C-alpha cells in the first residue's frame, strides 16, 4: 500500500461470496447504525475484519440549505445556517453574519464582537463535549457521555438565557447582535468557567491514561499532514497531524487577534492525538472566554445596517474556525435583496472525505472509532 491515494475506487459490483473462500466481503454500515452519528451509510470492503476500502454514501439528510438561501433575503437566511451543524449553531451563525457584513462592508461594534467571541467559544466547548461523549460511547465507555452532557447543559442554559433557544440559537444578526446581554451574563459565564475547568480534568481522568482507551486510539486512523492538506481536511484533525493552521490565528476574524491563546498540535495524526488536541482546545477556549469576559467593553451592539439589505454586486468568501474545522461561506450578490448563490464549505463534509484514507488497513472496529474522531455532523455533511 505504497500510496493510498492512488488506490482504485471500490468495485461494488462483484457479489460477495460466502464467508470463507471469499477474500473480500462487502458490508453495509448504516444508514441506520448506532455508530454512524446520524444517517451516514458506509460501504465497507473487508478482508476478514481488515478494511480494504470504504465509500461513504451521503445525502440522507439533504435539505437543500444552499438552494433555500437563494430564495430568502439575507436576514431571513440567517436562522437556516443554524440547522446545518446543529451542535455548533452559534459558529455557523457567526460565519454567515460576518460573510454578509463583509459583503455589505460594515463592521459589528466591538462589544458585539466580544459577545460573539464568548458565545462562539462556549459553543466550541459544547461541540467538543458532545464529540467527546459520543466518541467515547462508540469506543465503549458509556460514562463520559453523561458527564459531558451534564456540563454541556450549563452552556445551553447560558444560550437559552441569552437568546431563548438552546440548540439552534440564531444568536447573531447581520451587523451585530439583536439582544443586549442579560443581567449577570458575565458572572454566569465566569461561574461556568470555574465550574468547567475541573470538569475537563474529570474527563481526562477517565480516558487520557486509560489503557484500553490508549490501545483503542493510539495509532488508529492515522493521517499524514500531506494527506490532510491534499484532502482539504481542516480543524482539529489537521492540527493533530502537526499542521499549525487555525483561522483564528491565520486570518483573524471577529476579535480574535486581541486574545491570547495557543493552537495545540499533535505529531502522529492518530485518534489519540486528535483527542488530546480537542481536549486542549477546550482549555484554550476557556482561556479566550475568560479574557473576553474580562475585557467586555461597553457600547452599542448593532452597527448601522440598512433596513433592506441590498449588497452591491459582487462575491465574498469568508471562513471561520468552527469547532470542526474551516467553515466557509461563499456568497454571490446580484444586488438584489436575495443572494444569487450561497455556497457553504462545511468542515464535516470535507473531513469525511478523509475517512477512506484513515481507515484503509485498519479493522472494522476502528472505522467506528475513526468516524467518531472525525466529529462529523450529518446535518452539515448533507446540508
Amino acid at each position: 500500500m505504497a500510496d493510498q491515494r492512488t488506490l482504485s475506487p471500490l468495485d461494488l459490483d462483484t457479489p460477495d461470496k460466502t464467508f470463507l473462500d471469499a477474500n473480500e466481503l462487502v458490508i453495509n454500515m448504516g444508514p441506520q447504525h448506532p455508530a454512524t452519528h446520524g444517517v451516514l451509510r458506509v460501504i465497507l470492503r473487508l478482508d476478514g475484519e481488515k478494511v480494504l476500502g470504504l465509500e461513504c454514501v451521503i445525502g440522507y439528510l439533504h435539505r437543500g440549505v444552499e438552494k433555500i438561501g437563494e430564495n430568502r433575503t439575507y436576514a431571513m437566511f440567517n436562522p437556516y445556517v443554524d440547522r446545518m451543524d446543529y451542535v455548533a449553531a452559534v459558529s455557523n451563525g457567526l460565519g454567515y453574519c460576518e460573510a454578509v457584513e463583509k459583503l455589505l462592508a460594515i463592521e459589528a461594534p466591538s462589544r458585539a464582537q466580544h459577545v460573539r467571541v464568548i458565545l462562539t467559544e462556549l459553543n466550541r466547548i459544547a461541540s467538543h463535549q458532545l464529540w467527546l461523549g459520543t466518541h467515547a460511547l462508540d469506543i465503549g465507555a458509556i460514562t463520559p457521555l453523561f458527564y459531558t452532557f451534564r456540563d454541556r447543559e450549563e452552556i445551553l442554559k447560558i444560550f437559552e438565557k441569552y437568546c431563548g433557544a438552546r440548540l439552534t440559537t440564531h444568536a447573531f444578526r447581520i451587523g451585530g447582535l439583536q439582544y443586549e446581554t442579560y443581567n449577570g451574563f458575565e458572572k454566569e459565564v465566569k461561574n461556568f468557567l470555574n465550574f468547567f475547568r475541573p470538569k475537563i480534568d474529570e474527563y481526562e481522568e477517565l480516558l487520557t491514561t486509560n489503557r484500553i482507551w490508549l490501545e483503542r486510539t493510539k495509532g488508529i486512523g492515522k493521517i499524514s499532514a500531506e494527506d490532510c492538506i491534499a484532502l482539504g481536511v481542516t480543524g482539529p484533525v489537521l492540527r493533530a497531524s502537526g499542521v499549525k493552521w487555525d483561522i483564528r490565528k491565520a486570518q483573524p476574524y471577529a476579535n480574535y487577534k486581541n486574545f491570547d491563546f495557543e493552537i495545540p498540535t499533535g505529531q502522529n495524526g492518530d485518534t489519540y492525538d486528535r483527542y488530546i488536541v480537542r481536549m486542549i482546545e477546550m482549555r484554550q477556549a476557556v482561556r479566550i472566554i475568560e479574557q473576553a469576559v474580562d475585557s467586555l467593553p461597553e457600547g452599542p451592539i448593532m452597527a448601522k445596517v440598512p433596513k433592506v439589505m441590498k449588497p452591491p454586486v459582487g462575491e465574498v468568501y469568508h471562513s471561520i474556525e468552527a469547532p470542526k474545522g474551516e467553515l466557509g461561506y461563499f456568497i454571490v450578490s446580484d444586488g438584489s435583496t436575495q443572494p444569487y448563490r450561497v455556497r457553504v464549505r462545511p468542515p464535516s463534509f470535507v473531513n469525511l472525505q478523509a475517512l477512506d484514507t484513515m481507515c484503509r488497513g485498519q479493522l472494522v472496529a476502528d472505522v467506528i472509532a475513526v468516524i467518531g474522531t472525525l466529529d462529523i455532523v450529518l446535518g452539515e455533511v448533507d446540508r
Partner: protein
Amino acid sequence: MNAFVQYIESYLTSNVTPGAAGNMFWASIYILIVFTGVSVGVICMNWLERKVLAHMQVRLGPMRVGPHGLLQPFADALKLLLKEDIIPARADSVIFWSAPFIVDLAAFTVFVVVPFGPQHAITDMNIGILFMLGVSSLSVLGIVMAGWASNSHYPLIGALRSSAQMVSYEVAMGFAVVSAILMTSLNATGTGTLSMIGIVEAQKAQAEWFIFKFFPLGLIAFFIFTVAMVAETNRAPFDLAEAESELTAGFHTEYSGFRWSLFFLAEYGAMMAVSSIAVTLWLGGWLRPFPNWLSGSTWDSIFSYFPGATFLFLATLCFYETARMPKHPYFRIQTIGLAVFGALLALIGLLLFVPAVSVRIQDIFWFTAKVAGFMYLYIWYRGTFPRYRFDQLMRMGWKVLLPIGLGTLILTAGVALIQQNLWRP
C-alpha cells in the same frame, strides 16, 4: 406417613449436602431454593445495575415504577413476557427456539455444586470445579446456535466473536483454577480435591484464603481468573460480542420478548456462577473474613452479628429515603411501599440476630456477600472502561494471561514442592 417424616428428618441430623446424603426430598427443596434464589438475584442485579450505573453517570436511573424504581425489574419482566415473540422468517426455527434454553440450562445447572455453606449446596460432586467449568462452557453452544439460527449477519459475527472469546479465555481461566486446586493439596492429608466444598474446607484447614497463599502467586491467579471471567461472561470491557456501536446487539439481535429475557437471565446467572467459582477458589467461600487474624470465639460471635446488622443498615437506608420522599399526596403509595420494604428488611435483620437462625444463615450470608462484591465490580467495570478491540482482546488472552497463568502454575507447584519437602519435616 411416619416413614416419610422420618425420611425428611433423617437429613437434619446429617452434616453433608442433601445430594451427598442421597435425600431426594431435601435435594429438591434445595434445588427450588437455589434456583429461586438465583432468579431473585438476577432481578436484584437488574435493578442494582441500573441504579448503580445511573448514579455513576450522574443520573437517577429508574424512579417511577415503585419507590426508587424497586418494581422496575418486575415491570420489565412483564413487558418482556407480553411482547410478541418474533422468529425471523428464514431462521432455523428449532435451533432458534432452543438456543436460549441451552444457554439458560448451562448457566443454571452450574449452581448444583455451588457451596453456599458446608451443608448448603444441592450436592457435592468430587469433580465439582470440573463440572462447573465444563457446564458453563456449554453456554458457548447456545450462543453459537442463536447466532447461526438467526440467519443474519450481525448475530453470526457476534456469535463467532463471543464463542472465540469464550473458548480462548477458558484456557487462561483453566490455568488459574488449576493453580488454586494445587493449593488444596497442601493439607496435612496431602491430597487435593476438586470438590467445591472440599476446596473451601482446605482453605479453612490451612487457615488462609488462597488469594493470600504464596503471596503474590495466589493473587496473580485470582487476578487472571477475574479478568478471564469477565471475558467469559461477555461483559464490559470485553463485551464486543454485543458491542452496540458495532454489532447492534450481537448474537441476540434477532431475539425479542420472552426469549430475549432468557438470554438476559442466562447472562446474569453466568456472572453469578463464575463469581461463585472465584469466591470458592480464592476468597474462602462461606468462611467469614479474616479467619486467622481475628480468630477466637469472641470474634466469631462479633462476626455473627454482621448479617443482621447489614439488613438493619439497609432498612435504615430505606427509612431515611422514606423520610426524604416528597410529601405530596401523589407519592403516598410509593412512600408507604418504601416504608413497608424497609420494615421487611428490618424484620429480616432482626430475625438474623436470633442465634439459632444466624448460625445457620451466616455461611450463606458471607458467600452471597462476596458474590455481591463481584457483581458490583461487574457494574463498575461497565461504567468505567471503554471496549477492547477484538484482536486486542485475543492478544491479551493468548499472549498475556495465558503465559502469566502458566508461569503462576509452575511457580505455585514449585513453591508447594519446596514447602512440602524442605520446610516441613
